[in-house]
């Protein structure tokens, strides 16, 4: 249980330690602080997006102990002692993850606001199921709303990544049927 510190107005704050993208952070948070805001405001990890704060859109998806969650539905105190991967932790040493590269190759990114959550949901899928069917890809990203793409190129990109088909973007002339 996190240590509680009460200020002069009687407001309680909790001392938590979270492990974000491999780094340990010890923070003092209010009981009502949501993980999204702690990541964005306290740790400046603004790749985690806020779209609805109701758990509907999936823009704030992070991996909590490897599982994709809407970070707006997680209280920061619930994350105490746990491992979190945000979009900033997906590429390693400037090298893109296969899913990220595949999203670029397939033009699966438009406005990009759902993209971090989409990448993390796909990442979690391919970690537990390296060779998903199209249906399984669609199920895995069904909690991530995208208003731009109709999901067509996103699904293609995830499937291509699962098959290891990562080629530079520019090799394609038009739409594969």
């Amino acid at each position, binding site marked *: 249980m996190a240590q509680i510190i009460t200020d002069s107005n009687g407001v309680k704050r909790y001392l938590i330690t979270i492990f974000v993208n491999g780094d340990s952070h010890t923070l003092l948070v209010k009981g009502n602080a949501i993980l999204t805001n702690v990541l964005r405001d306290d740790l*400046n*990890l*603004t*790749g*985690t*997006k*806020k*779209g*609805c*704060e*109701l758990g*509907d*859109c999936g*823009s704030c998806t992070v991996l909590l102990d490897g599982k994709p969650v809407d970070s707006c539905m997680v209280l920061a105190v619930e994350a105490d002692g746990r491992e979190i991967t945000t*979009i*900033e932790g*997906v*590429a390693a040493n400037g090298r*893109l993850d296969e899913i*990220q590269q595949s*999203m*670029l*190759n*397939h*033009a699966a*990114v*438009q*406005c*990009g*606001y*759902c*993209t*971090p959550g989409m*990448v993390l949901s796909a990442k979690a899928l391919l970690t537990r199921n390296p060779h998903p069917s199209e249906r399984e*890809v*669609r*199920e895995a*990203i*069904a*909690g*991530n*709303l*995208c*208003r*731009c*793409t*109709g*999901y*067509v*190129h*996103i*699904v293609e990109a995830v499937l291509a990544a699962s098959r290891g088909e990562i080629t*530079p*973007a*520019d090799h*394609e*002339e*038009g*739409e594969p*049927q």
Partner: protein
Amino acid sequence: MNNNYKVIGRSVQRIDGPDKVTGSAKYTGDLKFPNMLFGKILTSPLAHARILSIDTSEAEKLPGVKAVITHKDVPSIKYGLSPARWDENIFCSDKVRFVGDKVAAVCCVDEETCYKALKLIKVAYEELPAVLDYLHAMDEGQPLVHDDYKRNINTEIHQEFGNVEQALAASHHVRTDTFVGQRTYQSPIEPHSSISIWDGKKLTIYASTQSPHYFQHYIARQFDLAMGDVRIIKPHVGGGFGGKMEPTGLEFAGSALAKLTGRPVRMFYDRAEMFAHNRGRHAQHMEITTGVDKLGKILAVKANFIMDGGAYTSLGIASAYYAGALLPLTYEFANYKFDMFRVYTNLPACGAQRGHGAPQPKYAFESHLDNVAADLGIDPMDIRLLNARRPDTVTPNDFQVNSCKIRECLERARVISGWDEKKKNLPHGRGIGVATGSFVTGAGYSIYRTDLPHAAAVIKVNEDGTNATLYTGAADIGQGSDTILCQMAAEAMGYRYEQMKIVAADTELTPMDFGAYASRQTYMSGAAVKQAGEEVRKQLLEMASTMLSLPVDDLDCTEGIIFSKSRANKTLTFQEAARRHFVLRGPLLGRGAYTPPKLGGSFKGAAVGTSPAYSFGVQVGEVAIDEETGEISVEGIWDVHDCGKVINPRLLHGQVHGALYMGMGEASWEEVLFDDKGKIKNADLANYRMLTALDMPPVQSEVVDSHEPTGPWGVKEIGEGSTNPTLGMFSNAIFDAMGVRVNSLPLSYEKVWRALQKKRKEEAEGRRLSCGTGSAN
């Protein structure tokens, strides 16, 4: 067709792609400034009420609250997007006109304090009867939303071209149908957000906007500033679809709060507030009458529409005109009458949503045309081919159409969808439908009256020639304009895309551009960029001519290599020549600007719908309906488009997918619902249902070979027009599957089920009647 292009026509990687997949792309809500405050707007809980008093004293006492403002603290001049009807104030002073109308604002040290402070502002209201049903808004005795708009009429249109009554009288068959379109909301995934910062008399606003220029114009007007003292910067924008065209209370209130406190203020809408701000698709009642000859050739069309505008005008005058103006594009007919009332109601204001004004009328007309075809026993594909517009024609409302390959689109869609086979053989409960669409490639006239060019661009080649930067006011809101404009710049310069950089949509750094609306940037911003690129190329070749001692006419440049057309061994790199140019002649710059030619007729409203070019498209959809539940499964959609020369195929098809996706949402189940007090019932993304990855049907998107003679490299639009056929296509596929027509959007499972129940009941009654006669003994 010239296939020697090196940069355009290729699916290059998005220029903003790496930033977006790694989370480093910054949107307005991601930005922080030292000493920044957070602001929120207090909105009305009532649809229509007189404001008796506002008491902010308790809120002001709350620790952490830095300012509370009401109408007394801000400029009182009215604003709006359409200059003909400025009817909105930063804050309401006398009365509120919808649930969500702006009353006051606070700024505080953090978000949590903002929400607490809003609750402490005491507003006393006298509730007034509200106008919630747009079909009765014009009735005698209805309350007035705005006192100076009698019968709540916001916009009234009566246009007639040719002689409709005469043509109808001469028709072989005349049919009238009525359809209803629902309110939908753009629902970009990024909520609106703005940050206002004053530096002396200069105001800088970071905004989630589709048009920095219009923001700059309207903010300057409201705060009585010179345009040059307002700087609008568009960071990455998480989608707009028409919903981020105009400044909102966020920019206005935020700027007032920032001025008062002397600190940067970040304002934001939460999801429910986005729904209340709205500016989405109007609800619309559409009666259409068509007269045809024996073969199905359209002789006359009469459209009689009423639109629910909500409490303010926004861009709604244009929406109202567009609803009728774009109807005569895909089919040729000479006689056309369009009557429209856009009415005020005490509901959120409607505006421009993808396909602006056109998708619902297109749904109505395409459904109606299939009814006509069924009356005459004509195949829906055939009646469209018979009436399809030809290139180099003029619509009855004076729109000049140059390139037009709708016939080729229909024929291709017929083949790839397996239309003829399916039309004959699809089993009971399955159906196939077709619809067409067309859209402007940019508006012929700007939103406010001005003689400014519609787009401008500057290209600056770096001193050492290793890179070039494109400066454009065009707004990439996700559609990819930054990428394709860099492709166009590189093509025009004879350079490489990989060496392009871009600075876009910052009114201080970039030349003006009207921004992302009316599907205009590839064509209009592209025309300015092409001109700028060609100016760079010309100067570069002149420099190279001196360096190589060859006539300039003998030189050309492609992919960064300057070469002699006559001597194979004479080459020079772009880089060398550009560097030399800088040393001898100073900065290597190219400039471009685009102004459309004078377009359209001279009747009232003739400007709306004019465009230098029109896209055309066809969609075919196949559905399977579960007759027990009404559940509709979309088995496939085929889209074929005439969108001119394609600059980036993958981005182009992405636009088609997205437009179709939005159209399918509107066709299937998206609808903003209100309770009997005018409050939105589903202002969240769980209850306002957008299609998920599991709901999106399989799509095949193709283009026909096309070249628009007026466009840079022959381009036309794609982004908005692809929404136009979708609703009608879905409606017609359902009609084909079950033989009954659902006359209102969305075409939900429930409505389909009810229509099937009704049909069965009628059939059963019919059988009973015939049995009764036969068995009388």
